[in-house]
């Protein structure tokens, strides 16, 4: 879980800045989830949060030099897609599996 030591300084700086920005935009997307006036607004906000968490997982894989977190990001992308489809079908059709 330690930062890889052989990375050049500008790369580890870029990874840190990317992590901070990705975490910040994830929090900002939470504004749309909480206040966003209609239900599809909230679904779009949650979808954006899912994609941003995928990005955070990739950046964390780069920071820790651990390729396993790429698999984590792929699984998070799958979960985000399925949950988006499920919620959209629930609010439009009334049930998920007919």
């Amino acid at each position: 879980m330690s930062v890889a030591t052989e990375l050049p300084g500008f790369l580890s700086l870029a990874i840190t800045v990317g992590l901070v920005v990705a975490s910040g935009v994830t929090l900002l997307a939470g504004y749309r989830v909480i206040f966003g006036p209609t239900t599809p607004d909230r679904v779009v906000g949650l979808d954006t949060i899912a994609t941003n968490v995928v990005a955070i997982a990739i950046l964390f894989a780069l920071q820790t030099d651990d390729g396993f977190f790429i698999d984590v990001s792929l699984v998070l992308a799958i979960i985000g897609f399925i949950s988006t489809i499920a919620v959209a079908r629930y609010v439009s059709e009334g049930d998920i599996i007919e």
Partner: protein
Amino acid sequence: MNTIHAALVTLFIAIGTFFLLVGTIGLIRLPDVYNRMHATSKATTLGATSLFLAGTIYFAPSAPGGAGLTSLVGIVFLFMTVPTGAHVISQAAERMGIEFAGDAVWPDTGESRPESPDESDE
């Protein structure tokens, strides 16, 4: 890790972070749900894809554990699923009767509100 390798990874991280920021600003600032998903589904996809490319370059595709190839699979997966998700959300918003912002209108009716769910069923 030599300097050119690191510089390429840094470039893709910068591009990806920029697109994530633009997508989320669009999510917050744009006026209605159709515009918001227009911003997020494209910009956020490009951002996450660029970060996946950074992962592919960082972990070379032939690396043990296959992290680089998994990143390429993630790119393909994102490009297939994110437009599908945005389409399904917009379809749900249209079924729920969400209005357009401003003076945009639906093409058939000439109104900002879509047809009632009874008439527009499939």
